[in-house]
C-alpha cells in the first residue's frame, strides 16, 4: 500500500509516486496528440460555416414540421424490405461465419499454421470494409436492388459473427470435450456433442445482436442503390422534400428501437 509522509504523519495514497507520474505523463501525451490533431483539423475547416450551423439547423428543423404523415403509406413496402435485407443478410453471414469461426479458433482449427491465418484474414477484411463499400461493389456486379444489399450485409457481418463466435469457442470448458472424447467419439461427434452445446447460447446471442446492428446498417444501403429505405431518404433529401424526410427519420427511429427491444428480450431469454 503506497503511503506518503505528511509532517511525520502517514497518509494513505491510492497510487505510489511512480504510477501516479506515469499516469500523468500518459494524460499529457494524449492531450498533446489531441491538441495537435485539433490544430490540423481546424486548418481544414471553414469556421464561418460552423458558426452558422445552429441557424441552419433551426431552419432545417422548421422545414421538417409538420411531418407529411400520408407519406408513410408509400413507405410500408420499403420498411418490410429493409427488415428483410437485415434478416436474410444475417442468416447468410451466420452460414459462412460458423465454418470460419471453427477454422479460426485455436482449439478447433484443422491447422494452426495455414488455415488459422487465412480465417483471421477473412475476419479482419470483412470487418474493415464497410457494408456501404461492399454494396457499392456489389451493385456493379449483381445490379441494383435488394439482392445486392443482402449480400453486402452478409459479407460485412461474417467478420463480426465469426470473431465473437471463435472467442466463444476458445473459452469452452475443455473437460466436457475430453469426456466426450473418452467415450470413443469420432471428431464429428465430439463437435456435435462436446463443443456445439456449449456455444449454442453464445451463437444465438451473437446472431440476434448482429441482426439488430444490421437493421441499422440496412437503412443506408439505398444510398448506393442496394435496396431499402435509404433510396427514399436520399431522393427526399435531393428533392428538398423535408416533410417527407422527417417521416422517414421517425420511421427509422421506430424500427431501430423496436429491433433493439426484440433483441434485448431474446438475449435476456437465452442468457
Amino acid at each position, binding site marked *: 500500500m503506497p503511503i506518503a509522509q505528511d509532517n511525520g504523519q502517514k497518509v494513505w495514497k*491510492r497510487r505510489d509516486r511512480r504510477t501516479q507520474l506515469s499516469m500523468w505523463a500518459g494524460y499529457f501525451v*494524449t492531450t498533446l496528440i*489531441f491538441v*495537435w*490533431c*485539433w490544430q*490540423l*483539423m481546424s486548418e*481544414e*475547416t*471553414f469556421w464561418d*460555416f*460552423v458558426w452558422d*450551423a445552429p441557424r*441552419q*439547423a433551426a431552419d*432545417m428543423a422548421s422545414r421538417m414540421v409538420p411531418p407529411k404523415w400520408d407519406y408513410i403509406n408509400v413507405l410500408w413496402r420499403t420498411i*418490410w*424490405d429493409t427488415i*428483410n435485407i437485415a*434478416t*436474410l443478410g444475417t*442468416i447468410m453471414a451466420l452460414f459462412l461465419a460458423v465454418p470460419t469461426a471453427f477454422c479460426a479458433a485455436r482449439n478447433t482449427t484443422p491447422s494452426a499454421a495455414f488455415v488459422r491465418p487465412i480465417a483471421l484474414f477473412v475476419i*479482419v*477484411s470483412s*470487418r*474493415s*470494409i*464497410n457494408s*456501404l*463499400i461492399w454494396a*457499392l*461493389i456489389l451493385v*456493379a*456486379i*449483381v*445490379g441494383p*436492388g*435488394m*439482392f445486392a444489399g*443482402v449480400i453486402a450485409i452478409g459479407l460485412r457481418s461474417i467478420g463480426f459473427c465469426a470473431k465473437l463466435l471463435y472467442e466463444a469457442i476458445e473459452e469452452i470448458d475443455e473437460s466436457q470435450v475430453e469426456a466426450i472424447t473418452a467415450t470413443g467419439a469420432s471428431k464429428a461427434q465430439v463437435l456435435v456433442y462436446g463443443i456445439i*452445446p456449449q456455444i*449454442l*447460447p453464445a451463437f*444465438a446471442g451473437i446472431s440476434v445482436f448482429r441482426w439488430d446492428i444490421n437493421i*441499422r*446498417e440496412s*437503412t*443506408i444501403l439505398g*444510398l*448506393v442503390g442496394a435496396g431499402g429505405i435509404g433510396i427514399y*431518404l*436520399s431522393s427526399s*433529401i435531393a428533392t428538398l422534400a423535408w416533410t417527407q424526410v422527417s417521416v422517414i*427519420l421517425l420511421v*427509422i*427511429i421506430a424500427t*431501430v*428501437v423496436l429491433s433493439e427491444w426484440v433483441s434485448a428480450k431474446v438475449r435476456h431469454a*437465452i442468457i
Partner: protein
Amino acid sequence: MTSTSEATPGKSRRWHRPPLIKRPLLRWCLWLGAGIYLAIAFGTLEVNWGRVLEGIPRGQKFISGFFPPDFVTNIDEIINGLNESLWMTITSTVVGIALSIPIGLGAARNLAPAPVYYFCRSVLAISRSFQEVIVAIFMVKLFGFGPFAGFITLVIATIGFYGKLLAEDIEDMDPVQAEAVKATGSSWLQWINYAVQPQVMPRMIGLGLYRLDINFRESAVLGIVGAGGIGVVLNNAFDQYDYQTAASVLLIIIGIVMLVEYSSGYIRKKVQ
C-alpha cells in the same frame, strides 16, 4: 439427464440432447414461424438471375481491375486522406469519450435520479438510432463539406456507443465496494473517483481502444457523403473507374485495422 423417454419404460431408451428451448409448443411455433417468414422474405427478394449471370463476367472483369493495386500514382492524395482520417479519428474519439462520461454517469440507474436517468437514456437512444452515414448527410448540410462534419458525426456515434456501455458497466458494478467507500463519509465526487471509476476502468480502456478502431473504419466510409477522410479518395477512385487506386486504399485500410486490432489486443491484455 433431461431425457424424455427415460421415464417411460417399454419404449426404446435413447438419450436425446436437451433442446435450447424447453417448451415443445413454443419451439415448434418458432420453427414454423421462421419457415413461413423465410418463404415470404425470399418471395419478395426478386432476384433477377439473368442480371446476376450477366453480372458474373462483369464482376470478374471488375475484380481483375483491382489488380495490381496501384499505390504510386495517387500517393499524395492517399497520404492526405489517410492523415485526415487519422486525426479525425483521434479528435472525435477523445471528444466523444469526454462527453459520454457525464451522460453515461447520468444514464446509470444506480447513480442518477429518475429525471436525469430518463433524459440521458433518451439522448443515448437517439444518438444510437441513426447509422453514421445518415447523421453525416445532415452534418454535411449543416457544417459544409470537409472533416468537421465527419468529426461531429463520429462524436455523436461515440457518445451513443460509449455512454451506453459505460452506463451498463456502472449498473453491473459490485455495490459492496461502493457502499464501503460511502461509509467512510466520502463526498459524491470522491465516491465516483474511488468506488466507481476503479471498477469500470479496465473494461472502459479496452472499449475506448475498440471505439478508436471503429471510428477509423467509419471514417473510411463517411467520405462517400463528403465528410472528409480517406473515404473521399476511395469514392473518387470508384467514380473515376480507377480501381487500382481503390484496391490500394482498401488494402491500406485493412492493414491499419489489423495493426490497431493486434496492438489494442496487446494493450488490453496489459491493462487487465
